């Protein structure tokens, strides 16, 4: 079964610092990759997604992620974080082997941005 690892459980940054959150998945076939964000007390919202094509994808609010197939990775980046980026970030994967029926999440990374 597919599994997703997010390396950092908690990240604390000051405003304007750069961000990189790691995500690795286990199944190496055709995958769809996602980053979701959950602001405090809210539901999950899609930040960005990768289906195919250019491995560097851009999402909302200045976020981007790079798919590196050889490393089974899909790391999230932002050049300069803001206080309003404080939230929980989840990487998720679905894959061809499962018929795209499952959507497996990592354990999440809590990002705290101090003003």
């Amino acid at each position, binding site marked *: 079964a597919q599994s997703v690892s997010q390396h950092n459980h908690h990240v604390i940054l000051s405003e304007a610092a750069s961000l990189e959150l790691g995500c690795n998945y286990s199944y190496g076939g055709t995958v*769809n990759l996602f980053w979701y964000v959950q602001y405090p007390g809210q*539901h*999950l919202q*899609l930040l960005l997604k990768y289906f195919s094509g250019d491995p560097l994808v851009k999402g909302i609010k200045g976020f981007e992620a790079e798919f590196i197939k050889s490393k089974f990775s899909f790391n999230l980046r932002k050049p300069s974080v803001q206080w309003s980026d404080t939230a929980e970030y989840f990487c998720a994967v679905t894959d061809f082997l499962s018929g*795209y029926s499952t959507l497996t*999440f990592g354990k*999440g990374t809590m990002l705290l941005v101090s003003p």
Partner: protein
Amino acid sequence: DTAVSQTPKYLVTQMGNDKSIKCEQNLGHDTMYWYKQDSKKFLKIMFSYNNKELIINETVPNRFSPKSPDKAHLNLHINSLELGDSAVYFCASRRTGGNTEAFFGQGTRLTVV
């Protein structure tokens, strides 16, 4: 207007009770999910339905019974509630197949006392 709606948003109940959470989506999707988010924010899939048929049933106590009366609805019924059932439950939907994203409901915070 809301794409995926869950009711209720909050549910406080006593141990041993039976309760239901409803989920409806107006996106025309044919796959729906229930996820449980525990106190550590870990999202664990519970069930997946495709065209009203159960596709995924993870290791979930049989006190939890999903019901999908039609493609737009996936309700979750929980019997004999236990303290450990306290969590936030999220419903989600997506179009079947690859290259589609999932949309999530607002969540139902269940507290068992």
